């Protein structure tokens, strides 16, 4: 069923009794051309673009939980492409362009809201670094504006401009950045893939990867039995090391937990996405009025989808330091998601040394904004066996070759990227 104003009126007149499920719940077939492990945003968008752009429709997406239960529903919904490095800017800009046309493309309301992403600078050095970043973006055709203090005060008067240690001096604004309703992204891609014949199999956990005598992948053992495939694609960020281990691969990844928070609903106050340059705090306001925010990961390795109180306290302190008025609000919910923290802070979309096995991993805490491009480029890789030109730097062997994409210049220490 195609969604439109007409379909809404038609359903309303029939008492909303004729809506059909957005996707089927099929039993797995014995064999598929492509199996995608992981029914998160990236896995579903990969299936969608494989079917829509690359003509491969005999696909299964295996999800151990239910659609939307993992990181695609656990992030702070921010989209942007304000990167610095050659390996990242074209990729994330491609993603932002896909976001801009996504709702028309997959016929689903994902509430893409380009409200602007503002990164604040608190020292002369940081302002210079943002000027450089803005220039790098503009040279790649991405929008960026450096705003001074006076311009910022007009846009966001509620910030703490005269903080004794971290005064606000400038801000780098990407107007095309913003937020998207994250679970609608999962549902929209799931529906779009399903409409094109992709089998989305929920509550199907992969326990082992089966390989033949030559070492080639031939299928997966699951709690619903063996399912064969020509190509196996792993999109299980958070648990990439666990799934790659089934094929005997060791990855340049550590798993960490990142927390996020939402306040009670308040009147509209935060019109943009704001990133605190003196900490790692970022905040936006949802259409329901809740302030959605987060900050650092918890620093210790964790596969638990829950975090530590010390990090909660740290996040709140950063928030109140930036926006003093926050201290009067109440936090409604907090949750954690587990992240693939890679060794240079950048992701991996690549073939593996094992035939028929493809890897999409290492998204750190920037995976949501990449969802469309990640799926598109991964689909390109799976279909054509070669990297899409915007993801050609995101190689698995770049660490061995010395071609890290270290946006923050922090070295091989996953918990500080």
């Amino acid at each position, binding site marked *: 069923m195609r969604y439109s104003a007409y379909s809404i009126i038609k359903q309303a007149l029939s008492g909303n009794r004729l809506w059909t499920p957005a996707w089927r719940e099929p039993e797995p077939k014995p064999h598929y051309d492509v199996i995608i492990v992981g029914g998160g945003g990236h896995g579903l968008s990969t299936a969608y673009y494989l079917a829509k752009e690359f003509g491969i429709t005999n696909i299964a997406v295996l999800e151990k939980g239910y659609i939307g239960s993992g990181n695609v529903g656990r992030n702070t919904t921010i989209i942007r492409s304000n990167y610095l490095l050659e390996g990242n800017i074209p990729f994330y800009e491609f993603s932002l362009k896909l976001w801009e046309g996504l709702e028309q493309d997959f016929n689903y309301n994902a509430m893409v809201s380009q409200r602007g992403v503002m990164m604040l600078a608190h020292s002369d050095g940081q302002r210079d670094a943002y000027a450089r970043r803005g220039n790098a973006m503009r040279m790649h055709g991405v929008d960026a504006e450096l705003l001074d203090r006076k311009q910022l005060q007009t846009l966001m008067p509620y910030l703490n401009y005269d903080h004794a240690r971290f005064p606000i001096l400038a801000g780098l604004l990407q107007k095309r950045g913003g937020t998207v309703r994250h679970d609608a992204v999962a549902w929209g891609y799931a529906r779009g893939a399903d409409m094109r014949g992709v089998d989305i199999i929920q509550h199907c956990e992969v326990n082992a990867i089966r390989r033949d005598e030559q070492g080639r992948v031939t299928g997966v053992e699951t709690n619903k039995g063996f399912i064969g495939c020509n190509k196996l694609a792993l999109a299980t960020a958070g648990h990439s*090391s666990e799934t790659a281990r089934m094929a005997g691969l*060791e990855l*340049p990844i550590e798993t960490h937990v990142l927390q996020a928070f939402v306040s009670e609903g308040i009147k509209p106050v935060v019109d943009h996405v704001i990133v605190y340059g003196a900490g790692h705090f970022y905040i936006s306001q949802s259409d329901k009025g809740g302030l959605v925010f987060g900050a650092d990961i918890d620093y*210790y390795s964790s596969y*638990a989808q829950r975090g530590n109180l010390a990090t909660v306290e740290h996040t709140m302190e950063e928030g109140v330091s930036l926006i003093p008025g926050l201290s009067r609000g109440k936090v409604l919910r907090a949750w954690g998601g587990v992240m693939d923290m890679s060794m240079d802070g950048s992701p991996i979309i690549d073939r593996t040394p094992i035939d028929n096995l493809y890897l999409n991993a290492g998204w750190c805490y920037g995976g949501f904004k990449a969802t469309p491009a990640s799926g598109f480029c991964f689909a390109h890789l799976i279909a054509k066996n070669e990297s899409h030109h915007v993801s050609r730097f995101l190689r698995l062997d770049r660490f*061995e070759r010395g071609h890290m994409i270290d946006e923050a210049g922090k070295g091989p220490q996953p918990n500080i990227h």
Partner: protein
Amino acid sequence: MASLITCPHCGTRPKEEFSIRGTALGRPHPAVSEEDWHRYVYLRDNPKGRYQEYWHHAAGCRRWLVVDRDNVTHDVFGVTDAATFGRVGE
């Protein structure tokens, strides 16, 4: 996560006193192959479950420690001084 860590030198202390380095790996001998160095610097076993991790008691004795714990249940099984952890190849 365990909010209290029992430092072998300082006793039971709040987690906020520590900073965390990452997986506790024995540093290889300088003469090992490039492949071994690549494995040491970049590749991680990253298990789900029992895990040894370097913690620095930054606001205490300033010793490097190895915290042996479970990264799913957050149980802490033991904390030892990193000096006793040893080097591979020695």
